[in-house]
């Protein structure tokens, strides 16, 4: 994302504080960061992690939106001190106070209203980047559309139980990649390459066809996310207008599925209702065109039933999101396109044979998965590679055989001549 670049150099004090990170991403990224305005809606534990990360990194300004009173604060939000006064202070205001202390160079503010109040084009236009934390799929879908219109970079993140994921939509994103080249004399030089990456919308990323995708390699958390989107859409279609009514509370999947369930049966979900959840799985998998067995009951249940987030997973997803936000704003290095998925369930209990690197924690959305394009990329390099291989083959395999054959023929010829004369 192009952001306004302040002309001013980093002050001596900034240089002292940012010393270590300047060594990681350089002065230019730091300058771009200090010009960026970030809006974060929803003050969950994940939002606290991301806000902390980007405030420490030194973005220009961070604005938080969440009007949940402190008495009902999410326990995983570490920005709110344990002895914070309860009402009427909101979680956003309490978090802002801590963030402001963390880095005096960053402007931190709280906006009134619920997280859904950012879903307006004129609000979004004042910022460079929007991050939705812990919001239902319907809000994510709506925010993505609005951000596209307003030209604002969009990120969303959700952490539930043992799952956590993030979604990115940077539209058309331009960035530079620095490559270190080592020369033969041992010296290194930097080569800067500019590239453009196009992103899919939320709608595309969650409802694209999975035809032709290797189902075994599909991250199952992605299927669940598709499910949440699908269910939310069902909800909207079946009468609930998310514009008028407050958006369904977190978690979308849980709320949507369980509320439908409760409407039909007039009671809460218990473990005995596994069959219902099974039907749901059939539905999600059938729609995605994959084997239902790919999505174990336990995993589905865990995602549906667990409402609390795990601070450890908040830290992991929040850290990766922080990195991505810095990449997006700094315009340096390739950002993830477009899902980051993390779960403790994926693969970790399968089988007893240890398989190295077995847990899948990141997968491109199938929309972006295109195996064939790689075939025609970088042809000169491939040709050179094959030629090099061929050269080795010629030297080590063909040459000895040909040489021996030549020698034998020569020997025979000589012998013949010898006998003749």
């Amino acid at each position: 994302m192009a952001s306004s670049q302040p002309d001013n150099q980093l002050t001596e004090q900034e240089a002292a504080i940012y010393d270590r990170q300047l060594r990681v991403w350089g002065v230019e990224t730091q300058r771009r960061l200090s010009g960026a305005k970030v809006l974060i809606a929803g003050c969950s534990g994940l939002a606290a992690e991301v806000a902390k990360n980007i405030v420490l990194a030194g973005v220009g300004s961070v604005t938080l939106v969440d009007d949940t009173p402190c008495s009902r604060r999410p326990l995983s939000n570490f920005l709110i001190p344990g002895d914070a006064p309860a009402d009427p202070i909101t979680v956003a205001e309490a978090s802002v106070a801590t963030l402001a202390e963390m880095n005096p160079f960053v402007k931190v503010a709280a906006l009134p209203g619920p997280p859904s109040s950012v879903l307006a084009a004129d609000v979004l236009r004042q910022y460079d980047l929007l991050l939705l934390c812990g919001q239902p799929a319907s809000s994510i879908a709506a925010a993505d559309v609005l951000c596209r219109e307003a030209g604002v970079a969009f990120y969303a993140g959700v952490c539930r139980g043992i799952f956590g994921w993030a979604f990115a939509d940077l539209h058309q994103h331009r960035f530079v990649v620095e490559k270190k080249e080592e020369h033969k004399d041992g010296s290194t030089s930097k080569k800067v390459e500019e590239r453009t990456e196009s992103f899919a919308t939320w709608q595309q990323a969650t409802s694209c066809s999975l035809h032709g995708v290797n189902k075994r390699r599909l991250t199952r958390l992605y299927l669940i996310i598709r499910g949440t989107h699908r269910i939310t859409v069902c909800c909207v279609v079946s009468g609930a207008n998310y514009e008028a009514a407050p958006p369904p509370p977190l978690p979308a999947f849980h709320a949507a599925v369980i509320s439908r369930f409760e409407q039909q049966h007039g009671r809460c979900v218990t473990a005995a209702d596994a069959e219902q959840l099974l039907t749901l799985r059939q539905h999600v998998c059938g729609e995605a065109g994959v084997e239902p067995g790919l999505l174990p009951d336990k995993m589905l249940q865990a995602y549906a039933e667990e409402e609390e987030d795990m601070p450890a997973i908040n830290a992991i997803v929040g850290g990766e999101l922080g990195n991505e936000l810095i990449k997006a704003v700094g315009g340096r290095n390739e950002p993830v396109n477009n899902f980051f998925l993390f779960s403790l369930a994926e693969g970790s209990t399968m089988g007893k044979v240890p398989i190295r690197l077995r847990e899948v924690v990141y997968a491109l959305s199938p929309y972006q998965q295109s195996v064939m394009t790689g075939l025609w990329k970088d042809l000169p390099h491939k040709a050179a590679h094959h030629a090099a291989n061929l050269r080795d083959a010629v030297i080590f395999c063909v040459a000895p055989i040909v040489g021996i054959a030549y020698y034998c023929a020569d020997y025979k010829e000589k012998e013949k001549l010898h006998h003749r004369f």
Partner: protein
Amino acid sequence: MAQRDGQWPYAAGSRELKRAVREARVLTVGAGGIGCELLKTLVTSGFRHIEVIDMDTIEMSNLNRQFLFRKRHVGMSKSVVAAEAAKHMRPGIDITAWLGNVKEPRFGVDFFRRFDCVLNGLDNLEARRHINRLCLAAGVPLVESGTAGYLGQVSVHLKGRTECFECQPKPTPKTFPVCTLRNTPDKPIHCVVWAKEMLFPLLFGVPEASDLNEAAAADGEGAASTADDPTFYRHRQGEGSRQFAERVHLYGTKIVELRRMEDLWRNRRRPEPLDLDVLLLPAADGSGTATAGDSVAIGGAAKPVDVASSACRALGLKDVHAVWDVPHSAAVFLMAVQLFVDGRSNELGSAQFDKDDALAVEFVTAAANLRAACYGIPMQSLFETKASRLSNIIHAIATTNAIVSGLIVVEAQKLLAGAAGSCQTSFLHQQVCSKRLVSRMAAPEPNVACMVCGTAQAELAIDTNKMTLQQLVDRVRGGQIGFKVKLDSFLDPITTRQQQHWKDTLLRRLLAQLPGGGVVHNSILDIDDQEQCFKAQLIVKHREDWNSDQHPEGFVLSGGLPTAQAEQLSAEAPADVGGRRDGRNDRRGPMPAHAGASELAALQETEDDVVLLASDDEEDATEAAVCTGGSIFWILFK
């Protein structure tokens, strides 16, 4: 802890785990980048009994990632401030801050044993090794971590189940050949290392720490006048700081000397000497910039304090990214020497290089640049010099630390949930790597050949103030464990002079009075019989109140020592040794406190040559042990 591996990921939100987390005692080692994030994640995850150790104080450059600290905390203890901040986050928790080095004897095996889990957030190999060994000795699971830029790693070390920190050899920092540094540098880093490790100690620090002295003696054949004299580099009594600075500006005379060594320059470009007088001329003409020549009076008390702490400020050079030209480097060099001699005369002769000491860094940068100029090597800015190995600056950012802290807590929760089998080693990538940003793999099994965790441990209670080394060797080794100590052979690997020294002094000394701090409470004695593949560690417990009737020997050995394992030990994990014995090993069971006579007899069959080595440096001990071969017994003083 029951094994509940099968339930793991879904047990993460269970009530049992929450209770286990609430009741667990965890130790966080280090309250720096990872430590701060870790404390935050622990506290929000529901951990209530936390202890944290750190020896450092807070610095300005910490604030960009160690978010529990504020500017007002600069100079205060990391562990104390971090504990306060964590308490502020969740007032009900029980958090204890320890200020000190983890290597201090008070953080011994007993200290570690109190915890359910130890979580590492350290920045150096030495301390990691130390913690690893203590955790193995105490039988406490260790979650180890490390970060560098976008890269990070988390691993679990569980005695007998997963590999320990030292099962795989760790890369040691790169070193450079000394002659390259002294005479023929060809990269900027050579100049920096030369300035930091040779010139700096020679001028201000402990001269013995520098290799430049011998260099001067070795190659000063032609011009013995200046460099041969070791006192040449020291500040002489009554000499003005400016005079001293100009005298040690070696780039004229020293380089001329080097140029005379024809052999060196046959295939290389000769270095160009720099003449100080010529250098200072254009600088003196330069507008605005104060030169060294103008500021001879700097040492006077009239100057403000912060000027005295930085040569750059005194000279008005502000941009740390700018590369100084040669006259500027010379000016900074002279100024830094002057400021050091005038302002910090009390440190002369003992100064240690510190990466946060602005003056020292400036001095090294200037000295390295001047040398680079002589040799035609590109010069570097202050910022670049600082980055290049001058210090062990770890490029650190908050996000990586946060991710790593999350991964650490996940592993800790697995351990507490009794799902140790699900523990994983995780790696962070900078870029998406085979579609992953975080790769995870099952924690590898222990390396049976590992010197550290392949070792079994037992406790040895003795009175370290009464027992001599000789007595320990005779009684404890000979009687209980079955090694026969032959004095003559055991002294083989050391020279005759050392042997004499040993016989005369060390063996007669009380354990507590041995060099290197002595064998005291919590010292670890290593036993290694290479023929039997027998390895053990004895943890010494000091005990004063001995009842001579109950324990005529004057010691108590407790805990299971391993059997002597045959060569096929690769099939046996160290933890199983006590229970699984076969063939000839049957005779040598794990030793109880008082072994029966028959067992003793069996043990004494093995009349091995035993070598006893002592050193205050573990590396030395290991080295010496390796070169002797055969059966070895060595003592590490901790």
